[in-house]
């Protein structure tokens, strides 16, 4: 750390010209532009690993195709320091970028981002004490908005095109080295390639579309030669108008007619303006993505999954060979990038890396972890996640995942939880109920019910019991989880399925739903209508729709109610009414409650709300202690000591401090997932819409 501070200080002194730290300005001076830029001698922040939680909608590889930035539908950005799936992506704290570029620098990476109003930020990522840290280099404020910003020379130089149509070359700290602001020179876009010979740079002019070669030599920009006129059938864009990778030609792709397969590629030599025309035809009506692979070939991708490799030798008249393009369809083709012969294609929350000189590709991303339920060990130190086809136990100390995948012929898992310190119970949809050793995961006892199960609930205690609900008949089954066997204790016909399932109270043997069976386990419940009428009357309201209910270990009753607003109601039982005496009420505005789960001690209530959040309340006053949003939460579980709460749902799960709501462990995915597949010609061009960018 000391070394780095000294380095920064040295650079600061070397570069200080009085403009690094802005002085207060006097009225009517223009907003400071370069004056705002400075070397930021700040510690930066460590980049934490973490995958995307939504579909990837853009991928920006580094020019050497060894790393990439990805953007998801939420605007989240991840840095992939390798593209072979060997390193987890890093969360970059940039929201909603309008444009990104990435370059590998001598010390790490340089990231440039333009926001949606043309303001630019430039960062560098460096390794420090074994972790990658993000530092801010400089900004260009949106009062000087930019159309484009490109990282050159490993981040040592940046090329900017302003909305004022000025082209500028900046050094690594944002100082202007050179600019082109000629009278009447109005570039709208830039194209550049970096080769060993240097940077080839052109400006795109409009009305008509022309390409103006620029020169970048010894940190000086200048206009060279005459603008070249090109034929385009639509506005200039980065697909149809690009430099060849060798920097010798500008290539313009166009179609003869709209939605026709006839195309032409106009190659203009930048040195002398000589034109080469290559023409061809293919069947698709989709406009292809054009990837200029080198000076001799281009790849056309029309989204069919079959790519055409086309020679740029005019003598061969557009001769083509075909190649599978894994991951390509009419939408993903628009977001595909090819750098140095490496195709990178978004594919849901994954992306595909396809080396064009190879026969296979890899699919890289985080393995999702949709969960059916979750449970905590009695002391809350371990959590078991119920995955669709397996279960995982995770320690809150070591964060190590122990994953067992079911046999492929078994039905998906429905439920898993800790019975006690030593045993776990796992229930499958097909009726298999197993007790497992909590340390090793090895099976201890198994029981098979020949039925399809849809729900399971556990009551711990000296005589732990499991309640399972059959999806096909209105009959619930109560199972005793013995040390030697799992025995059927009772078969119960539930009186109502309207309010919620049978629900185990934390006290062993006490079960609640539409019944108040503290003493008598299966007493006849009151009807839902009776409860609601009584509750409305007790509240002095016209109506009271109960959305869930529960009891605490000391017998208090809790109702989640809609009655003009969403309310929590706590009552104490009496002999006169089913509802009991109202002890406390609390409004929730327009946030309804789907589930109430009292803590084992009965002092806290955990609620799952319909609008996608979880809250914990004081059971006595009903006052909210904390909230946490989890839009996909479906399951709750308490540790027996009441210190921790686990929340699980279709997007993973988390363990929370029950008192504060602080996150103690989060499991949103099961780590990096890499599939290696052979490239195959497609047999169907059907799309999986849910894996496509949202367009």
């Amino acid at each position, binding site marked *: 750390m000391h070394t780095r501070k000294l380095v920064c200080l040295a650079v600061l002194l070397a570069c200080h010209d009085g403009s690094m730290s802005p002085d207060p*300005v006097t009225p009517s001076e223009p*907003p400071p532009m370069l004056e705002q830029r400075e070397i930021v001698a700040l510690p930066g922040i460590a980049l934490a690993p973490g995958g995307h939680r939504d579909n990837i909608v853009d991928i920006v590889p580094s020019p050497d195709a060894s790393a990439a930035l990805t953007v998801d539908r939420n605007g989240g950005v991840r840095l992939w320091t390798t593209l072979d799936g060997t390193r987890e992506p890093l969360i970059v*704290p940039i929201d909603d970028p309008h444009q990104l570029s990435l370059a590998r620098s001598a010390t790490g990476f340089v990231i440039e981002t333009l926001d949606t109003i043309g*303001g630019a930020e430039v960062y560098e990522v460096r390794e420090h004490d074994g972790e990658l840290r993000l530092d801010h280099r400089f900004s260009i404020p949106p009062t000087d908005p930019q159309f484009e910003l490109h990282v050159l020379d490993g981040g040592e130089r940046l090329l900017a095109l302003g909305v004022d149509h000025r082209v500028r070359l900046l050094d690594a700290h944002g100082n202007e080295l050179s600019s082109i602001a000629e009278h009447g020179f109005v570039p709208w876009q830039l194209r550049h390639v970096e080769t060993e010979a240097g940077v080839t740079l052109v400006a795109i002019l409009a009305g008509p579309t022309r390409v103006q070669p620029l020169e970048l030599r010894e940190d000086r920009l200048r206009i060279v030669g005459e603008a070249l006129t090109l034929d385009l059938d639509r506005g200039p864009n980065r697909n149809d108008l690009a430099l060849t990778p060798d920097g010798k030609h500008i290539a313009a792709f166009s179609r003869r007619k709209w939605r026709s397969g006839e195309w032409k590629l106009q190659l203009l030599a930048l040195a002398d303006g000589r034109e080469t025309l290559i023409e061809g035809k293919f069947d698709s009506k989709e406009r292809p993505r054009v990837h200029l692979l080198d000076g001799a070939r281009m790849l056309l991708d029309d989204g069919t999954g079959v790519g055409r490799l086309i020679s740029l030798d005019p003598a061969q008249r557009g001769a083509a060979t075909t190649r599978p393009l894994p991951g390509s369809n009419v939408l993903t083709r628009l977001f595909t990038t090819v750098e140095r012969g490496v195709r990178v294609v978004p594919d849901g929350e994954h992306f595909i890396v396809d080396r064009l000189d190879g026969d296979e590709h890899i699919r890289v991303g985080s393995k999702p972890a949709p969960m059916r339920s979750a449970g905590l060990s009695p002391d809350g130190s371990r959590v078991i996640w119920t995955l669709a086809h397996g279960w995982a136990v995770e320690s809150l100390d070591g964060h190590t995942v122990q994953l067992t995948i079911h046999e492929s012929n078994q039905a998906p898992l429905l439920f898993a939880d800790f019975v006690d310190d030593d045993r776990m119970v796992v229930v499958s949809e097909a009726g298999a109920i197993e007790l497992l050793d909590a340390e090793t995961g090895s099976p201890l006892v198994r029981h098979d019910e020949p039925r399809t199960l849809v729900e399971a609930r556990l009551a711990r205690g000296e005589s732990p019991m499991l309640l399972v609900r059959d999806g096909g008949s209105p009959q619930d089954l109560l199972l005793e989880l013995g040390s030697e066997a799992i025995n059927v204790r009772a078969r119960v016909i539930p009186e109502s399925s309207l309010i919620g399932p049978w629900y185990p109270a934390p006290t062993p043997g006490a079960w609640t739903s539409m019944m108040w069976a503290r003493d008598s386990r299966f007493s006849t419940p009151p009807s839902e209508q009776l409860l609601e009428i009584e509750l409305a009357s007790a509240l002095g309201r016209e109506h009271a729709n109960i959305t869930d209910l529960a009891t605490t270990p000391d017998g208090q009753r809790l109702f989640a109610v809609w009655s003009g*607003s969403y309310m929590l109601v706590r009552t104490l039982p009496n002999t006169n009414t089913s509802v009991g005496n109202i002890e406390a009420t609390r409004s929730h505005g327009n946030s309804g409650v789907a589930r109430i789960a009292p803590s084992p001690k009965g002092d806290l209530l955990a609620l799952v709300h319909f609008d996608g959040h979880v809250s914990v309340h004081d059971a006595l006053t009903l006052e909210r202690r904390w909230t946490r949003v989890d839009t996909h939460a479906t399951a709750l579980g308490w540790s027996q000591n009441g210190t921790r709460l686990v929340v699980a749902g279709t997007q993973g799960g988390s363990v929370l401090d029950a008192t504060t709501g602080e996150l103690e462990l989060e499991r949103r995915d099961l780590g990096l997932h890499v599939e290696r597949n052979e490239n195959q010609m497609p047999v169907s061009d059907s799309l999986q819409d849910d894996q496509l960018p949202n*367009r």
Partner: protein
Amino acid sequence: MDRLSDCLSGRYPGHVSRRRRTAKTFGLALLLGTPLAWAQTQIDVYIESVPSLAIGVDTLGDHRPPQLGPHSGSHGSTIVVDAHGLLVVEREEGVVVRARKSHGEPVAELRLAPGLGEIIRDAGSNRVFVAERGGDRLLELTPGDAHGRGLGIRASVEIREPHGLALTPDGNTLLVTSVADHELVGVDLRDGELRIAWRVALAPEPRGVAVSPDGKRAIVGFLSMGAVALVRLPEHQAEPPRVRYRSLEPRDQLRLQVEEFEDFAETHSALVEPPSRFEVPSDTGRRSARNTFAVAFVGHGLAVAPHELATPQLTRKPQNTDTYGGGESFSPITHTLSMLGAETLDGAAATAPIEQATIAVHMPRALAYDLSRDTLYVGGYGDDAVEAIADVSQRTVHASWRIRVGQPDACGIDGLAVDGDSLWIHCEFGRELLRVELGTQEEVTFGSKLDVTRGPELTKPIRPPEVEHGAELFRRAGDSRLTLDGTLACAQCHPEGRSDGLSWRLEGAILQTPMLAGRLVGTAPYKWDGQDRDLATSLHATIGRLGGHPDRVSKSELRALRAYLESLPPPRPPTPSNADAIARGREVFESSEAACDACHEGSRLTDTHQHDFETALAQVDTPSLLGLAHSAPYYHDGSAVSIEALLANRTTIHDMADTQNLTPAQLADLGAYLESL
């Protein structure tokens, strides 16, 4: 349940406030120009359900209610509350009114220059400050007692067109936005003095400002920029403030989709990802944030900024017709609350996390935060609605409710303040205070009635009734005669009669919102192509373009709109920094070489003729150049981002003037002159 469903379906009269006359007479205080007796009325206001706000749910705020909130005076308003009652700013009239807490009755007033900005109070020192925007002064007031005795001016300092005010928590520094100079000014308040400590440049059209509870950060909103400024405040005297900008404009875009039913089709807007960078760049569907009048901090150090989101360029397909004014099931302008956390990386505004949600008030211009309820109140200038957003500082989906107070008399909410269990609302048009009894949170039940008292008129208007009426029509939302289904209002694109700085797709061309203030008298014809011979014709045409029914707008209403628009003064130019350069620039402007004044002639700087510039418009009307420093971008299509780019001919228009032979010094002088107009 019936009441609720009626309320949700719009049948319940929650928005139809019925005034119940319960006039009370109060004793006379030290008033000039106020009646001896005044009426305080109860109005029936019902709580309406509005959609919950999913904002701040993932990354912003905390899981628990905040224990500490923003400090007193963290942002300005038109109302402050002290031990003696309320002090209220009547902006148009240039009056500060001392009013009682009981029902907002006026007891004294202090007359200042018309056109005031905000008022603010430091609870610790009981110092009160007012931005006298029309008088180019920041004033410290002596707040006086409950009877208004002693209300006066204690000190002043010159600041050009001050508007927004915010105090640091220690009360040592007052931040002031200068509209004319595009600046944030730090005023040192120590030793009881007003001394300008620093100035820092901002983007054009700054308005509200707020300071964070730790006193390290400030946030500034703008009318014509899609960002807020995040200002790192100096911790030491020698340290300058640093300004960064955080975009409020979302990355995703709007696209129109046609939904076909059995016998008709309807066009909806839907959010989509922006086009690939390999497609033809286009502004179609991009959303722009505008009109961030008010900003504030809430709990857990979060900042909030309500604003508009406009989609100026949409295309209805396959007809390829304009969408100006909206239609069917989409509106080109919606209202949004942006919530910002602190930057995760020091100095990098891009890393300030932001979340946004649509709110149910029109033209939000007033904010108040209640720490005890962790509730934010947002006041709508256009629809007289107040939306309450519960648990706003917490990571949760926020329950929200709304009241509407604009019936039967229009309000024009321009200020809010929380005082215990009361929410005070200031109405620009009635020049009156409304007091809403909030009660306890448990009592918030949709369809239930709130106790709302409307106080008497605080001061007499100085604008003629016709101008007052025109101002009210200009900001009015919900009037289907003026715009399609009443979804828009004139003041959305022309806040304060100025420009939102956007370029709209309209009648086959891209047309920039013109500045109206100060540019309408003597500049006919109107519209960019000069198609409307006079202002009445132009108003008629604009209402029609917005999907309204101009034939249903009475002549008196059109006259009122015209009177209001013609009453607007031009924007004030920035403080001249170099009078010599401006004088030289004027010479260039009028020289035969540049010949700018060949078209931009006379006191209005227009020849009122049309010229052919080979653009999408057959001809372009010569615009007045008054207030040019505040009306970027330039040209009818907004293609010149700056005056410098315009003079350097780096735009889409190339035939306006031949500046090629001007020297760089002449161009700089000419630019200085143009900015001084």
